[in-house]
């Protein structure tokens, strides 16, 4: 095994990024490293947001289809932004029902398999400092996953804003620590090498030759450490953003945590630290208070509303609060521009949805779905009828999203068409 190019490319990009973060975000050599995009207007970022308890369908879906639809109750905070997003109804993955199958949201017909965000990350994530981030707000427990690797491994999610912040904006102290670890590690390697050589000498030919793999890898790792050390003092992105003194990780602080996570996502996109992020919005028994009034039951309790109007009303007020956070996110992305002068919103495909169609019945059909940004023609409510024989699947929309992001794919889970005709 020879040491190969990908690693060096990775480091190069990292260095390059680090420089970029320091001064302005514009850098002439940028093009040298990214593959020529098939379409310069193609968005480069992908954000997915999912709720554990679904979205109350009657309040989420607008009553009419088409461009003249009246804004629905849940989506009201997006009213002034209606040209920036499209609502979809009638789509799902034909996946099994129940909380257990929730992860069909990004995985498709077979829950807990290779998820959309990871497919995108595997394709375009390599080019940034972090291939992807998996985030959550409101989770008192982190055993669940929304994102799954190619091998079907559920990825852990970052729950504390401070942890994400630390990764994005390395502090001087952390930088020093990394430098120390690399420096000391590198100098100590000599002694390990000395012992390894002694070991190799004692082995008969074939066995000794087998250890050549070790020495080749050793040199590759040593070189890599050297390169990392060279770039360690390159400036890192800085920010004035202030986190609260505590991490809002208890479920009742979900909306607060959600806002901060969105803010940090804007910063991550702005500094081109990553291109792919997912945000999981959990829901347990937490009782929210809006304007000083406690709701009539906890989030999870409300989702099992049994069609009680008071419960539904309170449930929708939580979901509206989520959409409020999204609207704030979209506004921020509208205002910021990327290095090529395009707004971050046009540069970012945002998918908001869920794996739960109706939490009151634990049904996973007709999943509320919304796509914002990415330079699509928006302002529409695209209603499809799942009863029709050739009705599109949610996976077909995902194929359209991936193609928009410059990926050459024509398959996702059980879907093999796209929605380019309906949505472009």
């Amino acid at each position, binding site marked *: *095994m020879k*040491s190969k190019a990908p*690693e060096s490319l990775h480091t190069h990009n990292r260095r390059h990024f680090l420089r970029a973060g320091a001064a302005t975000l514009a850098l002439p050599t940028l093009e040298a490293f990214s593959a020529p995009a098939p379409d310069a207007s193609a968005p480069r970022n992908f954000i997915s947001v999912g709720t554990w308890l679904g979205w109350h369908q009657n309040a989420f879906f607008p009553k009419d289809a088409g461009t003249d639809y009246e804004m629905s109750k849940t989506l009201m905070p997006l009213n002034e932004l209606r040209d920036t997003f499209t609502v979809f109804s009638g789509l799902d993955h034909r996946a*099994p029902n129940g909380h257990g199958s929730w992860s069909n949201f990004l995985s498709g017909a077979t829950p807990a398999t290779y998820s959309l965000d990871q497919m995108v990350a595997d394709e375009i994530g390599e080019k940034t400092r972090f291939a992807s981030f998996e985030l959550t707000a409101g989770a*008192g*427990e982190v055993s669940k996953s929304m994102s799954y*690797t190619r091998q*079907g*491994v559920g990825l*852990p999610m970052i*729950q504390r804003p401070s942890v994400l912040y630390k990764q994005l904006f390395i502090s001087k102290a952390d930088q020093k*620590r990394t430098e120390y*670890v690399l420096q*000391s*590690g590198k100098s*100590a*390697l000599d*002694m*390990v090498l000395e*012992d*390894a050589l*002694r*070991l*190799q000498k*004692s*082995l*008969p030919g*074939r*066995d000794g030759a*087998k*250890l050549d*793999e*070790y020495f080749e*890898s*050793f040199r*590759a*790792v040593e070189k*890599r450490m050297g390169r990392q050390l060279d770039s360690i003092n390159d400036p890192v992105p800085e920010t004035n953003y202030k986190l609260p003194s*505590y991490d809002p*990780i*208890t*479920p*009742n602080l979900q909306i607060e945590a959600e806002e901060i996570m969105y803010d940090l996502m804007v910063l991550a996109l702005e500094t081109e630290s990553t291109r792919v992020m997912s945000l999981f919005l959990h829901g*347990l*028994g*937490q*009782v*929210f*208070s809006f304007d000083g009034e*406690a709701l*009539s*039951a*906890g989030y999870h*309790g409300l989702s*099992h*509303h*049994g069609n009680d109007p*008071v*419960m539904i009303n*309170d449930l929708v007020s939580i979901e509206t609060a989520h959409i409020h956070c999204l609207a704030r996110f979209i506004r921020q992305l509208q205002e910021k521009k990327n290095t090529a002068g395009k707004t971050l919103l046009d540069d970012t495909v945002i998918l908001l949805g869920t794996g739960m169609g109706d939490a009151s019945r634990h049904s996973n059909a007709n999943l509320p779905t919304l796509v914002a940004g990415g330079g699509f023609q928006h302002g529409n409510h695209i209603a499809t009828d799942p009863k029709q024989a050739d009705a599109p699947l949610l996976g077909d929309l995902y194929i359209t999203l991936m193609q928009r992001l410059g990926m050459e794919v024509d398959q996702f889970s059980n879907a093999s068409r796209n929605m380019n005709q309906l949505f472009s």
Partner: protein
Amino acid sequence: MKPFAFLSYFFAGLLAGSLYGEEIPKGVQHIISNSCLECHDSLSEKGDVNLEQVSIDWSNPHDLDVWLRALDAVDDGLMPPPEEKQLSDAERETVLTFLDTKMLEHTPIGGTLPRRLNQGEYEATIRKLLSLPKFKLPVGFPNDTEHHGFDNLGEGLVLSPSHLDGYAKVARSIADQIFPPAKEAAKKQAWEAGPEDMVLSFSAATVHGDALRLVSRSVDIMRSCSWPSRIEIKDSGTYQISVDASQFLSEKGHSFEEPMILEVYARPVSATDRSRVSDFRLIKEIKVTSEKSESTEFEADLYTGETVLFRWANAEMTHAYSELTDQLEDWFEQDPRFLAAWQKAVFPKDDFKSIQTTSLRGRNGWNIISKHRANPDLDLSRATMDSEMTRRLLKLTNSYNGTFNFADALCHFYHERGPALELHQLTIEGPSKLIKSPENLAREKLQEKITGVRKEEQSKEVFAREMLKAFLPRAFRKPVSDETVKSYLTIATRHWDEGHSLDEGLHLLLRNILVSPRFLYRSLEPGEMNDFDLATRLSYFLTQGPADAKLVDLAQRNRLSITQPSESDKNKTEYWVIRREADRLLPKKHTDRMIQSFVGQWLDTRTLSGIMPDPKFNFGEESTRIAKYETERSFVEMLNTNRPMTDFIDPDFTFASVDFIQRNYGFTPPFALKEGTKLSSSEKRKLRKVDIKRGGRHGGLLGQASILMATANGVDTQPVIRGVWVLENILGMAPPPPPKDVPALTPDTQGTTNPREMLTAHTKDAACSACHQSIDPVGFVLENYDPVGRWRTEWPGTNAGIDPSGVLPDGTKIRNAIEFKAWLVENIDLFSECLAEQLMTYATGRVPNYAEKREIEEIVKINHENGNGFRDLILALVESKTFRTR
């Protein structure tokens, strides 16, 4: 896959008969040229076998392999093919004796390459070596390569730069955990929390002006407790805590005579809301006796990441089933109007159809009930304790959902009227003194395990040398030389000389030990295996991890390899200690690492979770889990109860649920048919040992859903794939890889031809037929099993009945799977040799060569003759020279 490429054939062809190697005796040459060369000359090379040679270069692996295949084919009676002239007994004897002698001479026992620890072994090793029982490799750690069906073979375990980089990163995070970097100095802090800063969960708490009310004593914290959500202790220490609390009572509510007990717990902020109070540390009990707010101040130890949690321990309200039912019953009896209001809320249509009670959760439920109660027109006609509706209401109360939903509604009665416990203000200040958290203490213990205790006035250098002398042999799994100790000691001393702390030096040391080849590889010592290597091989074979203290002790005293003359046969030597130790270490449960790893790879149960059966088979995740369990648990049963080898093929037991057997295998286990046996649905789903009849369609490896699944693709079956699988994993006759230019069979969905017709056409070619003669019969015979192992009689999409019959390579005609199983039972040694070879490959990390296979054959034969079982077989394998040689 056999590891030779096209080119090596080419060169072998050129070199055949050249100067290299030993000449073939004239007598043998004569037989070969008369009986073999018509097909196997240098021009035809049928089956890629060219025997047109005058001499054989036994040191050339390719030559060795070609002649081995010739030997096997003649020995198994496959060559010359039945339609050709056969060898006379004498000729056969001559050829076989020559080849056997030469093969034994030129395939010395042993030869495993250094084996890098694979993922499973690495995990188990770190867990044991560093006492980190929960250690796991990070997601995305580079995978291991499979070689000859296993991921633990020396040849396959390549070490790439990404592997070494991965190891270096893991080593750093382990070192960070054990010798963490120095923390910033603790700063004193003060937190305040009022009712608005407290968590409201379900109906546990409500806010009323400047008070937070608690009403339930449920042990589930999310039903009864509250805690400040913006306080998280940074430094473990002693803190001053002050709590303002009062009683809340009202005329409409019940009275409360005793002092209210307010429990204060320490809870990690990140603990799940599904915790119970017993999961946390009780730090204070406060007696609240006044309706006026009173402050209580106390000191308590809080650890990093914690906050405080409040519970009213002697509240009237509870969420426990029976207590709640009793409580409601009392209330209903005392107040018919209250009862009628509940009836109206739960059965709004005046019939016995209840609403979904989840909507009565929380304040909403209480509001609905209160509204009904206040309604002057409320129907009281059924508000008696003996009415049918009351009976149904109480039944609902005493159900899992009803309890929680009703209790969550009832909580609001207390929130509104009391009695409730009120919290007004919490302050925490500190730390006044730093303390060690349990995590710190555990870490210190861990450090001490690795470094030993530092004696007074012991220099850093002496301390580290002592540590290395004890730790390196454990990490490297054998005694280490002074030179090696010195190399590693230098790492630490140099670092200290540069001005770094003791812990920093140890951190660096640990990181580097964990990337040493002596740690990452086993099977390193050249020559005969010594006791330490033997201990390591045995332990990794049976536990995936390093030797335990007992094995190490035996190795240190050179006791592991000692022998004694066999009692039954004085000419034989027994390796009784290693045998005894193997018996001790053999896995006992199906979840043990060795079972998951070996069976997972031999029988491919590892691949099951990746197969998604077509929905039409109605075979979901649960079924897949049971299928895997059936195979693994049966294997363990074979081992634990030392069953005869034939029970792998045709046993009288299996492990599954009755439901699974009925659904997938289409019969009801005899015990469940017995008169008077009525199984509840949960009993039907229970996994258990089930007696079955021998000689049936199901039972035994070939009838198990997991294997039939693993050899299909979830949608349809392919006889060739199953056939090859059976040859490789059951019969131990791996066919050579298929020629590259032959396309795979695509099932004819039009249904005009059935699989057998298609394959017949496909293999008409003489070049294909030789291998397919062995592959097809053992593949087609399983065609009655669909992709999830259910019995079927027609090929899907055709009207053609399945024809599973065939002729086995030895000429036996079989009509179906049951007859094939019977044939296997008759010829069980074939299977036993196959399994023994698989076990030996897995254990030694190399594919057994000719001489080793002969030893294995002999062991299988003797095991059979002595009437011994599977456990005996494994123990005999461990005693073999093949196992004991590197």
